[in-house]
């Protein structure tokens, strides 16, 4: 958990994440829950209720211009080390207009100018507001996240499955998902170790 300007992490802190964090703290002080600025995967933790405001800010701020939602993933934590069961929805954003200077490319550690946002939602009721209207490309990623992980994206007209059939039981990437005995009369034999 690194703070901006913390002398212990300042040397290794990722300037890309740091700049976004500063802008977010200034404009939406309530939105940021946590932030990790160093390590292999720096990210900013955001409250689900503020997600859309955060995303809009990140996209529209002329100094940030995160114009592309590169990837949406979700990580299931049924028994986390601390706190209650949750699902992390992770957004990886990319800006093609604003790029760090050349020295960033040869930086040790993270030298890829992406920005990661993390939204933790309770596992019992995983609901995240959609960002499809902010980045249209998020459409299929949200559908896939719903399909495989069962995170509901609210505010969309519809949220159909994308990879699996509409009547497939459950969301297979949940850790507690069990193989159905059969699907439309076809017996399913789970592979070893699953």
């Amino acid at each position, binding site marked *: 958990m690194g703070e901006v300007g913390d002398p212990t992490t300042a040397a290794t802190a990722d300037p890309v994440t740091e700049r976004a964090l500063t802008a977010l703290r200034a404009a939406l002080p309530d939105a940021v829950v946590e932030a990790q600025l160093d390590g*292999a995967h720096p990210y900013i933790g955001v409250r689900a209720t503020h997600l859309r405001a955060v995303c809009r800010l990140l996209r529209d701020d002329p100094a940030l211009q995160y114009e592309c*939602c*590169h990837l949406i993933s979700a990580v299931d934590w049924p028994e986390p080390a601390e706190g209650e069961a949750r699902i992390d929805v992770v957004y990886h954003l990319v800006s093609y207009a604003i790029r760090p200077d050349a020295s960033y490319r040869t930086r040790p550690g993270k030298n890829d*100018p*992406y920005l990661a946002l993390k939204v933790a939602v309770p596992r019992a009721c995983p609901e995240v507001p959609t960002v499809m209207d902010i980045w*249209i490309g998020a459409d299929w990623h949200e559908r896939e996240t719903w399909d495989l992980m069962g995170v509901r994206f609210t505010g969309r007209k519809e949220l159909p499955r994308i990879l*699996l059939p509409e009547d497939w039981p459950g969301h297979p990437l949940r850790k507690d998902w069990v193989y159905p005995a059969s699907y439309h009369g076809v017996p399913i034999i789970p592979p070893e*170790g699953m």
Partner: protein
Amino acid sequence: MSAPLAPDLPDPTRGGEPGGVVAFHERQEYVGRDVRTEEMVFNMGPQHPATHGVLRVAIKTDGEYVRALQPHVGNIHRCAEKIGESVAFYQWIPYLDRMDYLSAMCNEHIGCMAIERLGEIEVPERAEYIRIIVAEVQRILSHLMAIGVYGLDLGAFTPFLHQFRERERGMDLLDHLAGGRLLYHYVRIGGVKRDVSQDWLDELDAFLGAVEQRLPEYNTLLLHNRIFQERTFNVGVIDRATAVAWGVTGPALRAAGVDFDCRRDAPYSIYDRFDFEVPSGASGLGGQVGDCFQRHWIRVREVEESIKIVRQAVAGLPEGPVLGRVPRGFKPPAGEVFIRGENPRGELSIYMVSVGKSEQAWRARCRGPSFSNIACITEVAEGLLIGDLVALIGSLDIVLGEVDR
């Protein structure tokens, strides 16, 4: 751009009401006229020759004009991510091969990098160079295939078979190295499986020479062909805003005028040591920025650049071991990692989470470039002719194995 089929009728691609598809025969200019037309719904695929696998596109057409369309994917979903959570790290690499089966080496390279960063494993210098060599050879092979298949989509059969002649040599090369022609499992965690020999490098050089020599021939058959240009100029234009908003990456993004290549702008592995150009769409090339022609042109240019990179890598190949020490039953510490790399088709990203003390990943998320690239056709394809839609899908060069994973 495209002349209407019936010159006295208004062009249905223009002057349509914004948003929402209005049934053709209900539109104002046709009410009260004798002509009555109906929209027809086509299912293009899953067994259609031009959908490059098992993509299904439901198209609503006015005669030959596409009014709306919806791609349906998932027909060859093989649970790559679920498997990634269920098998040991090193066992997942062959599954990455099978995602985008035309760029297996690149997939392996990026997948191994993600796991290595998670476990903080050092890769020997020589192995890094060999990885670059095989990944770029793979890029050449993949682009050759894309160039040839695009010809096939547009009705030119000959370039397709011509590129196979060179591609075959390249596949033999990788076969000698890895023992497989399409799916290799050659890049391993901590290095690569086998060292390259001097003979192999000589053969590689001959292969590069052959590609360099033949590339102008393909261009004569396609890129400089008048009919090809008429088919691709100003067709299926994905402009910068559309491409970026939909998350389009790779040659399609560069054709849209975004000068971005992971290898140069977010360098991974040792790409920062090589000197190469990143071609991007420009208005002087013919056609317009972001059309099918420029996507094809980018691929042709990238083959040339890849040849440069391979030559530099071969010249700088250091001596040393090719496989670092990786403990048996490798268990990386807890943590997460996000890696993206430039595949022939776009950016492949891997996001992995490890909880530590486990041989399996807690979460192994992949982003196949084709997945986002094909999503954008819902917006771009409206108003095209069916023949143009084929040109558009072909120019995006998707691999369905990667869309569905």
